[in-house]
Each structure stands twice: as C-alpha cells, then as structure tokens.
C-alpha cells in the first residue's frame, strides 16, 4: 500500500528491520501470527516491536498527545483479540493501520458525543493574530520554526475541533495527509462516494472557519464570508 502516511513511515523506519516480505533472517508476519494463535502469546512482542512505530505515527497525527499512549495500547490489544480474523489476504501492516485509524475515529466520535472536544490554549484573538502574521509575511519559512509550528498546530486544532468527527477524519486524511479517496475509504471502512462527498464538504467548512478567523481581524473579508 503506497499511501502517503505509510510511505512516510517506511522512510522513517528504513533503518529498522521491517519485513514486508520474507527477508533473510526474519520471521514472516504470518508465521509470527500463527505462533501467537497457537498459544504463544509472548511472540506478540515481535509484532509489537515491528509495528509500534507505524501505529504511533498514525495515532500522533490524529489525536492529542496525552491520548497517544493509551490509544496505541488499545490498538494493539484490539489487534491481538482480532488476530483470528486476520486472513492474510492483505499485508498485516495494512490491516493494523485500519485498526489504528478506526481507533482514532472512535476516539473523536466519543469525544464529540460527550462534547469533550478539547479546544486549545490560544484564544480566537490570538488565532486572528496568527492569520494576520501569516498573510503579512513574505514567505512561509518562518512558520516552519518550532515556535510558529506549535501555534499553527493550535490554529489547526481549533479549526478541526469545529468539524464533526467524520469530517475531521476525512479532512485530516484526504486533505491534510494527502491520501487518496480510495485509500481513505478503505482505511475507514466507508464507501468511496461517502468519502468524496464528505471531504469536499469538510474542506469547504474548514475554509469557512479560516475565513471567519480572517474576518475577525479584517472587515474586508466580510464579502468573502457571504460566498
């Protein structure tokens, strides 16, 4: 699977021995899974070592930092409990990615249901300041520095928190991460049409949020907001 997210993970972990195929000296995933299913629970540690980076990369992209460890833990437990259902017709990493992505979606669904979506520490005025600073700067380079990056992420979280759980996942995966509609649909277990419609709608909503943000600091945006 050549999704951007998995691709970036493979690049990052190129120095770690990750068996996509049955490489020399390594036990194939399917063999490890068979052993676990035969009752050797300790062998699951091999899976854990191989794929914790993959799961971590997916979870950190979607969830707040304080929820990463717990969610990654739950992903592996769910994978362990679901191992008998793993047929091996797709790579294990893809199967595990699905579990991780769906765990992130479940997290947001629960948060939105209980209305506990965490807003961030910055106020809307500060977000307006971020927007003004961005449009007045000649290049985006300064926004790549750690300090600005943190503020930009805060603005992003502020905007994402105003979307529904479904829209949030779709906009993160399709628009921010750069996955294809088909890959997103496969990972989330939704239809392609659903993802297509939702990603279009969610992106529009994200733009509307940004327009509102800009309009708070500059009245000339009022016309844009009406469109």
């Amino acid at each position: 699977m050549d999704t951007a997210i998995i691709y970036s993970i493979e690049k990052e972990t190129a120095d770690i021995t990750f068996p996509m195929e049955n490489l020399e000296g390594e036990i194939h995933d399917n063999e490890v899974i068979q052993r676990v299913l035969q009752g050797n629970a300790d062998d699951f540690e091999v899976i854990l070592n191989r794929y914790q980076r993959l799961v971590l990369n997916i979870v950190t992209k979607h969830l707040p930092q304080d929820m990463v460890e717990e969610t990654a833990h739950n992903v592996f437990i769910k994978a362990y409990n679901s191992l008998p259902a793993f047929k091996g017709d797709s790579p294990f990493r893809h199967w595990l990615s699905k579990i991780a992505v769906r765990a992130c979606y479940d997290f947001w669904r629960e948060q939105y249901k209980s209305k506990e979506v965490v807003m961030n520490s910055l106020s809307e005025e500060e977000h307006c300041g971020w927007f003004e600073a961005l449009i007045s700067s000649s290049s985006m380079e300064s926004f790549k520095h750690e300090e600005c990056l943190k503020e930009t992420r805060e603005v992003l979280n502020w905007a994402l928190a105003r979307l529904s759980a479904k829209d949030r996942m779709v906009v993160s995966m399709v628009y921010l991460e750069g996955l294809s509609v088909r890959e997103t649909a496969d990972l989330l277990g939704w239809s392609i049409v659903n993802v297509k419609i939702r990603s279009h709608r969610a992106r529009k909503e994200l733009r509307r949020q940004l327009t509102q943000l800009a309009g708070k600091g500059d009245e000339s945006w009022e016309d844009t907001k009406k469109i």
Partner: protein
Amino acid sequence: MGRHEEDLSKAEETLRAAYRADTEFSLSAQWQAGVMRHIHNIEASKAGTDDTQVFGRMVWSFAAATGVFSVIFVLLALNSGVAPENMLANILLNDPLGFTASQLILP
C-alpha cells in the same frame, strides 16, 4: 477577492505543512511491558474460563440428544397404549394397605 483567495490558500498550505511536520513522540519504557501484561492477562482469563466453556459445550450438545430422545419416548408411549395414570391406579387398587405406595413415595 483574489487577494483573499490567495491568503486563504496560503493559510491552508501552512496548516497542511504543520500537520505533516514530524512530531516528536516517544513511548515510555513501561508502555510495551504494559501491553504485554495486558495480553498475558487476557490469556490467563481465557484459561480460567476454559473449564466452564467445555462444560457448557457438553451440556448443550447433550441437550439436543436429550430433546430428541424425549420426543421419541413420548411417541412410543402413546403408540404402545401405556397410560401412566392407569398404572398408578392399578397399583393403589391392588395394594389396599399401601405398602407398595409407601415404598414408592418414601425414600
């Protein structure tokens, strides 16, 4: 309008870059041990329920056989003309002092 579109695109691009930028996150040393401990607990609880599961399976497999046997027995009893109430009346009538009945009733 055109300028605003450009500004929006710039903001979107910056947000996308921030999303894609690597975030430093490392798991604590206890994390992996915690996952493995949880898995061992699952295995232990599975082993604990094994006996009851086997017993449950056994009972249910016999339940079907017992049901079929009961139906056959009732059908045979109806066809052979054996009526339990007649047999009971017969015992009582032929046993005026109640010896047989008391033996049947008392343990």
